């Protein structure tokens, strides 16, 4: 804060002016938001964003070259302007982190607090105050870099440039690039070819790629056994449910006060059940369920209970083994370890490519990235329909350039630490 008796807006400017400028820009953003509504990123798609970026950088350069020595520019490229700008940006980020966000166009926006809606707080990242303060911060950052170039260079400045210029490139590229980013999901059945993205009914978007799903595979973790409460179906002990991951036949384990012995296991079983009778037989076919035969004893139980437990499949029912009035042994749905699509991708340019796409293993074709997004799980582990996400982000290289500069800058900072103070 300013310590002198200097009047506000009288040079040299300090933090007071910084906070006034920061909140002023934020308030202007609020007025724009209230009158014009949220920003529509699609309006800024190429070439608008590139022109804006070029104008922004040219503007900063001209300010630096023509007025770099002026007091106001020196103030704008210093700590007195930076810190307040960061405080305002931080405040908006905190609101963004507290309030659930609803992407534009979704119908389930909260109707209750219309004031938050008008301020754009449910779509913070495309609201005027947030975008304006981001550009204000970027302008400060840009001018700070330019001002440093005019000073005598030291080896330590490498770290400064990597961090500041890297952030400038990544930040500006990220904002401008968001208008050009395309994301589509595509649902493909085994054996089928698809080139249209999933859109609302009546609206079809054709993509320059076609995906043929040759096969889709799900790998599940081994089945688990749990003890449940018959009445509620809740797993026991209620405070911290216990479970046993199947590891093979003839093992014994303790589960929620019961001793469970694994007697038999069928990886592919058919389960037949009616009110009086349950039968489990091996059957190698699609839709077969996994089943485990267990023997359970428990203090107070006159003799052990023996029988099959299964989590069923889309063809067969699940079965639990009742131990007594209160509890049963059950097998919850298995957790998925991996799901993978074997695909053939055709491009408009005429190339054909066979590839495997999995989670964390996207496929890059032309300027598209194809991701394993999800699958239709109505058939459980026999799912035959895969959902892909196709993403095109022409600005990725720009942003990554900034990222790698920042990575190097962070290493530099870690090694060199803060500047030694003379005092």
């Amino acid at each position, binding site marked *: 804060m300013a310590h002198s008796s200097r009047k506000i807006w009288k040079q040299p400017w300090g933090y007071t002016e910084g906070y006034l400028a920061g909140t002023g820009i934020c308030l202007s953003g609020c007025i724009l938001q209230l009158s014009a509504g949220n920003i529509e990123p699609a309006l800024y798609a190429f070439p608008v964003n590139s022109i804006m970026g070029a104008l922004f950088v040219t503007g900063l350069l001209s300010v630096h070259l023509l007025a770099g020595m002026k007091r106001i520019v020196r103030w704008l490229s210093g700590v007195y302007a930076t810190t307040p700008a960061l405080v305002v940006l931080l405040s908006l980020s905190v609101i*963004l982190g507290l309030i659930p966000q609803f992407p534009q166009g979704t119908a389930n926006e909260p109707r209750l607090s219309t004031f938050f809606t008008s301020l754009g707080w449910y779509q913070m990242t495309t609201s005027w105050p947030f975008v304006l303060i981001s550009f204000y911060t970027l302008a400060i950052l840009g001018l700070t870099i330019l001002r440093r170039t005019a000073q005598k260079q030291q080896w330590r400045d490498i770290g400064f440039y990597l961090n500041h210029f890297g952030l400038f490139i990544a930040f500006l590229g990220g904002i401008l690039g968001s208008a050009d980013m395309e994301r589509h999901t595509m649902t493909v059945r085994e054996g089928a070819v698809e080139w249209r993205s999933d859109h609302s009914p009546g609206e079809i978007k054709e993509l320059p790629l076609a995906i043929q799903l040759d096969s889709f595979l799900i790998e599940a973790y081994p089945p688990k056994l749990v003890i449940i409460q018959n009445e509620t179906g809740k797993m026991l002990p209620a405070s911290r449910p216990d479970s046993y991951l199947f590891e093979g036949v003839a093992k014994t384990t303790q589960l929620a006060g019961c001793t469970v012995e694994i007697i038999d296991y069928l990886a592919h079983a058919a389960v037949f059940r009616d009110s009086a009778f349950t039968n489990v037989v091996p059957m190698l076919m699609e839709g077969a369920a996994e089943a485990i035969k267990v023997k359970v004893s428990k203090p107070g139980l006159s003799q052990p209970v023996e029988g099959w437990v299964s989590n069923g499949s889309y063809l067969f029912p699940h079965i639990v083994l009742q131990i007594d009035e209160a509890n049963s042994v059950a097998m919850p749905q298995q957790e998925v*370890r991996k799901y993978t699509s074997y695909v053939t991708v055709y491009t408009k340019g005429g190339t054909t490519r066979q590839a495997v796409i*999995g989670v964390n293993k*996207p496929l890059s074709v032309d300027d598209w990235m194809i991701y394993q997004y999800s699958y239709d799980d109505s058939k459980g582990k026999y799912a035959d329909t895969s959902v892909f996400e196709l993403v095109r982000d022409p600005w990725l290289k720009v942003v990554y350039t900034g990222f790698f500069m920042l990575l190097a800058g962070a290493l530099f900072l870690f090694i060199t630490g*803060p500047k030694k103070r003379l005092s």
Partner: protein
Amino acid sequence: MTWNALIYFAAGALLLWGAGAALAMKYNTKTLPAVMTTAGLIVFFFFIAALWHSLERPPLRTMGETRLWYSFFLPVAGLLTYLRWNYRWILSFTTLLSAVFIVVNIVQPDIHDKVLMPALQSPWFAPHVIIYMFSYAILGAATLIAIYYLVREKQLNNKTGILQTTDNLVYAGIACITLGMLMGAIWAKEAWGHYWSWDPKETWAAATWIGYLLYIHYRLKKNSSDKTAMILLLIAFLLLQICWYGVNYLPSAQQSIHTYTS
């Protein structure tokens, strides 16, 4: 090795760390406290390694598992600060804070099983989380020093030295936070299709980052108040806590894809 064995290893490690902290307070030589603390770290790391082996995946998925690493890195940060800047009391504080997180882990254990969801099966998983936990521990040490400063402000005679130490810790900490964040971004591009989606966890990570940037930039001015700088450290650490686990209790968390409790 199961989670139930934690109590024995933790007890052993805490005894050694406690002994190291006590020796640091009592004697001038640094060797013995350093040996004790390192021995405690070896005991504690043995547990982490054995847990890793038995779970057949990196123990970094659940909140409890991240607390485990935090309990490990706190004495590391304390030891480095002690050896480098000679604060005798820092080991007691990091041991105490580490003990708090160990007790939480023993009293309120998570469910730790072998399951690792497909999104987490990536070479980025371990470095991303480990570097974050390391930076949290370093910044935790900086916070302890800030509290020490604010409580004893009137009695202190080497304020400049204390602020130089927090500067050093914050620079190292934010360097690691930046590395962790960017690794996370590159990983997110590979797993979720975009490097930055303003997921609540990401938003709070950005807020934490800005918080420490504020400290660094505020400190650049020679006429800045030392007390304000220390208060900034507390605010930034509060943001860090929200990012780490507080976010799970916020209204925005319902949309987070950053939750991995099975």
